[in-house]
């Protein structure tokens, strides 16, 4: 699995900084990730953690005047960060497909569905009009839209949310890209449609052996479809590993707090766990030290690293900062929590 040619996308030390006046603020801070063929990599975190910024950095949707992207995003022999707009356009759609969160905003309200899907094909293939038409119907059929012929002539406003999301997926997979970025593909949909869309993504992946980056804050979705998980907090990846590792043996305080704040099946009258405070905004983000420290103030400062680095707790399971070793929830018994942490190590 760890073979060299298996890696589709290799992100190293990626920084994405937004300009405010003369200063730049890192929304994505030193992120290193690998996406393998045939896997679903989930990126989870609260809103404001930089998940979507990371996605848009990969596909190069940032305005260079107001954003500074540094680091490397290695795809084949190209470093996507260095590409100019014209070159980038050859990758967008063809090699990297993106599924956006809000399907209505992602679709052009004035274009028919068939034209919107065919647009990608016009740029990246040399199909003629009939072939494109054929392919559009094929795609609509593939994403499970009934009566593709009729729907292809319709406009986005005539479709329901689930149907629109399917159209967006159809656009993303039109050129069979090896990398698909799904930015909260199911947040705007209700759970039943969500299950269908996730199934659809899984099927597409099975057919085209692509790598999918799934961005979401729904841990249930992650547990269901993802192979590996990266937990993001305040622009950094705080924990990374396989789904089994991260969910069964969560290490980082943030991951553990998130899992704890889910409504659970066996506790009835208990209060839900709330993580103190909020994700700090970019301006007030501390540059050094563990960024989660201010939301777990009962953990002494000595537990954190001054310059947090990734620690490997199990093969392929990385955790940032040393605070995971001594972390316990505020209301828990310190000794017990320490015992558990030692046990899982």
């Amino acid at each position, binding site marked *: 699995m760890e073979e060299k040619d298996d890696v589709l996308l290799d992100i190293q030390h990626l920084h994405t900084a937004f300009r405010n006046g003369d200063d730049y603020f890192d929304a994505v801070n030193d992120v290193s990730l690998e996406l393998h063929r045939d896997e679903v990599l989930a990126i989870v975190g609260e809103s404001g953690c930089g998940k979507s910024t990371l996605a848009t950095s990969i596909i190069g949707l940032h305005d260079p005047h107001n954003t500074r992207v540094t680091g490397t995003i290695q795809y084949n022999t190209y470093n996507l960060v260095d590409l100019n707009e014209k070159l980038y356009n050859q990758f967008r759609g063809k090699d990297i497909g993106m599924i956006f969160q809000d399907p209505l905003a992602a679709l052009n309200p004035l274009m028919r569905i068939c034209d919107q899907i065919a647009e990608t094909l016009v740029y990246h293939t040399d199909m003629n009009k009939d072939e494109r038409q054929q392919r559009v119907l094929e795609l609509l059929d593939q994403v499970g839209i009934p009566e593709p012929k009729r729907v292809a002539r319709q406009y986005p406003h005539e479709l329901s949310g689930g149907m629109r999301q399917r159209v967006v997926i159809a656009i993303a997979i039109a050129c069979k890209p090896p990398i698909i970025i799904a930015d909260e593909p199911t947040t705007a949909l209700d759970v*039943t449609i969500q*299950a269908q869309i996730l199934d659809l993504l899984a099927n597409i992946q099975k057919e085209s052996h692509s790598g999918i980056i799934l961005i979401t804050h729904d*841990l249930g979705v992650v*547990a269901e479809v993802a192979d590996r998980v990266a937990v993001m907090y305040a622009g950094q990846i705080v924990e990374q590993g396989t789904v089994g590792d991260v969910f069964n043996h969560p290490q980082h305080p943030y991951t553990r707090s998130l899992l704890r*704040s889910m409504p659970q*099946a066996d506790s009835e009258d208990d209060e839900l766990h709330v993580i103190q405070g909020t994700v700090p905004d970019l301006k007030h983000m501390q540059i050094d030290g563990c960024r989660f420290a201010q939301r777990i103030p009962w953990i002494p400062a000595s537990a954190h690293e001054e310059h947090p680095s990734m620690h490997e707790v199990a093969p392929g399971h990385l955790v940032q900062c040393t605070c995971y070793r001594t972390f316990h929830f505020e209301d828990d018994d310190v000794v017990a929590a320490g015992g558990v942490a030692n046990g899982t190590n």
Partner: protein
Amino acid sequence: MALIEIRDLKVHYPIRSGFWNRVTDRVLAVDGINFDIEPGETYGLIGESGSGKSTTGKAIVGLEKVTSGQILYEGQDITKAQTRRNLRYNKDVQMIFQDSLSSLNPRKRIADIIAEPIRNFENMSATEEQHRIKELLDIVGMPQDAMYKYPFEFSGGQRQRIGVARAVATNPKLIVADEPVSALDLSVQAQVLNFMKRIQQEYNIAYLFISHDLGVVRHMCKNLASCTAVGLLKSVRGRTFTGTHNIFTRSVCYPPFRRLIPMNARPTANTGGPWRRSSSRRSRVTTVPTGGCWTCNSCPRPITLRCLMRLWRPTRGASSNVEDNSQTRPGHDSANFLVECDYLHSRQDDARRSTNRRDYAADRPGTNCPPAPRVRAERPVVDSVLALAD
């Protein structure tokens, strides 16, 4: 005595078409549902989008015109605006909306937004009003200077809390919470839910909690009703979640519920419970047949003759013996044909579990669905349908 009794509530929307714009058809958004809400309890209403949950909620608040049926509040039918005014119903029943931003007037300050119900229903002087607003902001855990801000200055969780503050401003007895947390992050969701529970305990407020997230509903509710495209399917009353807990373990093989649990992999214990993936995918990429049994869609089995039977059965609607059933078996408020479908499905599942499939197939070549064992003989109608199908 129940705070609110819903009796055979129907909300139909007309479909107009043609040159004269005449009513040509109707959308049966809510079609004959029954349930009661007790004071101080949380009543969960779950269902897919488009199943009429929100319409039910709006009808109860009075935002939607009721086609027929009754909503009894203190024994009086409040489907007419005049009765609502006489009973001061509008003061006692408030609503929390799903989309917090669009439910707050962008041109009003928070103080004015929260003060609106107070100004409508209570006779307060300006200073009293100020005092009350501060108190309310305190209840929802917001700083007092928030009252001079505008809605856009707040995050989603804060806005939702402002919505809650507005809803509790008149000391209501019932709050209809229409998906109050579905747009929020996990941690914020936990905050809002905790807080809703707290004010419920403090002020003895009843909630009608509308949601499509079973985990959240389970956390909040004692009683649960599920809403389907046709009406209220099954409401498990007088039972705590130990009864409906089965939904989660899937031992109640109730297809609509299964569809509402997208993920089987919910943590069972604090941070570190066994997460597992569901063994089989329950939903397939298909569309719901119009006018058919939509539970078939989530049915993991291939379409059988029985499933096809259901496609033409719906027109017959609820049979009369269903009413008898609801009387003889307290705890199940309402039922209609879909319950029968559900019943069939669950029986098939029972059969799955109890019958060795290979033995069965050896007995009956050419069939792919084991027969239901003859248990639960209290449903004669279903049995006759089964006999027909066989």
